[in-house]
């Protein structure tokens, strides 16, 4: 087995957060290596709705600034398209979705309230199943697969490296610093380490003496055959998130999740469930003129959440040269900004463009040890195969 050349910064996790961080670092001239246990973007990063509109986040302003530039910055297509429409099937939903308008307005972004007539005009596939909606003049959507690969290729164009099929098994530490990452293909030396390993971030950070609390769950999406393009593809609501892709497919998800035990070995199984049918039912409610469209695939992703569902982007107190990052189930759209924040923490010691104090690990200092149980995030036991 040939020895793996170390790097100044080793990033564990070839998801969208790790690859964006790698790209930001590489384009700044940093020698960076991303380690991925399977294929890049194979987990939640490649299995989401592609939304880019996170007005509750301290990274929102940077997310909004960067997305329109990403094709140019990466040199590869992301399929980003600006703006979104959210339709409500009840006054209750209408009231709930109004939060986005207020959050964005506070940060200087416009929205419009749509009545039924306007909603139907802007969304040709909509019908009388909605009461109205919002047109957000911010945010948008992109293609997760293409964006993901764009980060990887752009990082490689700047001299960064990706090593797939490489599993991290441990760390070598010295004087409160990580000096090498141990993998199933040998040791990899590093000056700094970034843990952005999705559900595995908790287990790996615990090995370094300070656990990022996370729990994994499975969520699901469906996709239909292509339909004629609507003027604005970023349409969702009625309890669903998703978009019409630039090819014309409707890709949507929502509904209950299943909390899962962490699989340490290999990539987790990601079976879909009959939830597909109920997502389909709601999609036909959201866009009744698409009710004839055929579902051609469904898929599931395994995603981690912190106890409060908010990201962690912070330096470990236990090891001076380690940055940990989980975007807690909402990582794709924020990735242009989260990668930059990680780059800042690694290179400058602090995020220079946003106040990310709400992403600190310190907020969990008084977290109950049995928080999973207290929040009801139990794993449903598998039953034995039924004997006859």
């Amino acid at each position, binding site marked *: 087995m040939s020895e793996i050349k170390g790097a100044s910064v080793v990033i564990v996790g070839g998801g969208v957060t790790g690859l964006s961080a790698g790209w930001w670092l590489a384009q700044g001239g940093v020698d960076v290596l991303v380690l991925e246990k399977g294929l890049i973007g194979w987990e939640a990063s490649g299995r989401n709705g592609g939304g880019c509109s996170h007005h509750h986040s301290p990274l929102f302003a940077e997310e909004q600034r960067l997305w329109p530039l990403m094709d140019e910055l990466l040199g590869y297509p992301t399929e980003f398209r600006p703006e979104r429409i959210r339709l409500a099937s009840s006054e209750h939903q209408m009231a709930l979705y109004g939060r986005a308008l207020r959050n964005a307005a506070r940060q200087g972004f416009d929205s419009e309230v749509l009545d039924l007539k306007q909603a139907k005009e802007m969304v040709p596939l909509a019908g009388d199943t909605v009461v109205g909606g919002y047109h957000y003049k911010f945010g948008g959507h992109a293609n997760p697969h293409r964006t993901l690969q764009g980060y990887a290729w752009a990082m490689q164009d700047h001299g960064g490296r990706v090593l797939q099929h490489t599993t991290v098994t441990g760390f070598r530490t010295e004087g409160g610093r990580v000096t090498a990452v141990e993998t199933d293909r040998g040791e990899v030396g590093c000056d700094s380490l970034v843990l952005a390993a999705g559900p595995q971030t908790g287990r790996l950070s615990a090995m370094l003496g300070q656990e990022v609390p996370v729990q994994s769950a499975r969520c699901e999406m469906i996709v239909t055959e292509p339909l004629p393009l609507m003027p604005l593809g970023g349409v969702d609501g009625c309890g669903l998130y998703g978009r019409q892709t630039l090819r014309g497919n409707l890709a949507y998800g929502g509904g209950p999740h299943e909390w899962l035990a962490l699989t340490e070995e290999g990539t987790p199984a990601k079976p879909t469930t009959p939830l597909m049918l109920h997502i389909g039912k709601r999609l036909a409610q959201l866009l009744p003129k698409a009710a004839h469209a055929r579902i051609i695939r469904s898929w599931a992703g395994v995603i981690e*959440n912190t106890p409060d569902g908010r990201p962690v982007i912070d330096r470990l107190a236990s090891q001076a040269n380690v940055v940990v990052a989980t975007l807690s189930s909402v990582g794709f759209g924020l990735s242009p900004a989260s990668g930059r924040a990680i780059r800042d923490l690694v290179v400058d010691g602090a995020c220079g463009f946003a106040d990310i104090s709400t992403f600190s690990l310190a907020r969990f200092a008084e977290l109950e040890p049995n928080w999973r149980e207290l929040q*009801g995030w139990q794993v449903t036991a598998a039953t034995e195969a039924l004997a006859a």
Partner: protein
Amino acid sequence: MTVPASDPKSVTGKPLAIAESVDVLVVGAGPAGLEAAISAAARGFGVLLVDENPVPFKTMGDDVPLHFGQGMAASARNRNTMMEAFVASEPRIVEAFEAGVDLRLGTACWGLYANGPALGWMPGLVAGLAGEDSCILVQARHVIFACGRRDMGLGFPGWEKPGVMGATAALNLATRYDAFGPRKAVILGSNTEALTTALALREAGITIAAIIEQAAKPIGDADLLAKLSAGGTEILAGHVVREATGRDGVEAVLIARLDEEGRPVGEERAIACDGIVLAVGATPVVDLIDAAGCKVAFQTERGGYAPVLNGSQRTSIGNVYAVGDCAGIWAAKTRDRAIAEAEAARAVAALGEDAADTAAAAAAPPAPDYDISAYRLAWVRASVIEARAEFHVCQCEEVTAREILEVRPPRYLDWQNERRNDRSLSALLGEGPPNPDQVKRLTRAGMGPCQGRRCREQVAALLALGAAQPLSAIPLAGYRAPVRPMPLAMAALVPEAPEQAEHWDTWFGMHAQWVPFWEVPARYTVATNDATGRVASE
């Protein structure tokens, strides 16, 4: 101590609308499925046997479940006639009725969900079934897959024209429904599957103008070849199709000789025909099997990707079996249905037995007398790579071989700003063999409404050729439910539990997740969290 309530937004406590429960569900009413159903009923099990055939004319037009290639005669539009013909062409269907089997024709199984560590929600084995206007969930104690075979697609300029079809589709149309459109066909391929197809079509009154084989010599049984020759069929080994010509459908096939390097050379020759039957690689139908999570592996002696089975035909999932062609295809099995029936009998004998007692390894089928990986790759090299003009390997998404091999973004993006010069597959995708799912995500090849039925094996072969690897090194492009396209309106026919509807949320339904950053408290504890706050996530 009180046990905290489970997360109301999770699947816990959300029952599924199971319409029926059965002892044994058998999917597919061919020789193996019928034998399984009839003998399971004889053992006293309640048996539900479903078969999607005959599928409606429109579904055939979409190349579901087989590559029909618009080769249906007009009579295929008459559903009653098709149903009668289907029943009449297989005497054991009536026998199954008489044995008390609950037999539902025109009913597809579009998914199987199995309880397991990654899927605690399922109460056991839950199958999704759909008829023309119905969609239900059925729970089964045992499932026996007998899903049959389909054919590897093989492209050439003009292969999208009506009249280019898979051998299995041609055989079904001609021998079961008497609804085969073409009157004069050429067959691509000369293995046993190809030759038996040719003979069966000839028996059904179709002229077989020629057998085209890229290999230097025909590879199938000499007796079968002799029979075909005697009947006037030309055997053209060392040849490949250059183009299918014709205005609204195939009117002729242009062929050329191959040189020793497998490159088309010399003058082309036209053979008049209105059907081109692709018979270069019969492959097990593993869509449901793979989507359910059963282990599958590339097994040369079983015709390609096939389920990993024990001696009782049991898959890696307890109580799920595979029998007949979907469990593996080889020459002797193609010629003698008793082999498939014996597999079914073994599976039924194991029903209700402890898996450990039936753990004997499966007896290996005889090794094929040719290298199916090299053979299929040679076809794709001669027909697709050496094609004289670009054409769509993935017809649904209109992706060419070059676009697949260069991992190009789809043309609708009109992407001009191409920075990368090194376009080798390995440089683009990193280490290890290229993964068709990864290529699919980037090029869209295999992403269309035919669900990859026409291009899946070709894309794998292209990637194998591009990476200089055997077919077995290329992972299977994953299958996911629904393995048959399903209208949203049909999905809506399965009711949703009120508990689920009440708690439905766009995302995880966590109030704290969506609190704007300027309102976030400095510390988080479960005790101080407002878990009842408003959600409907962003």
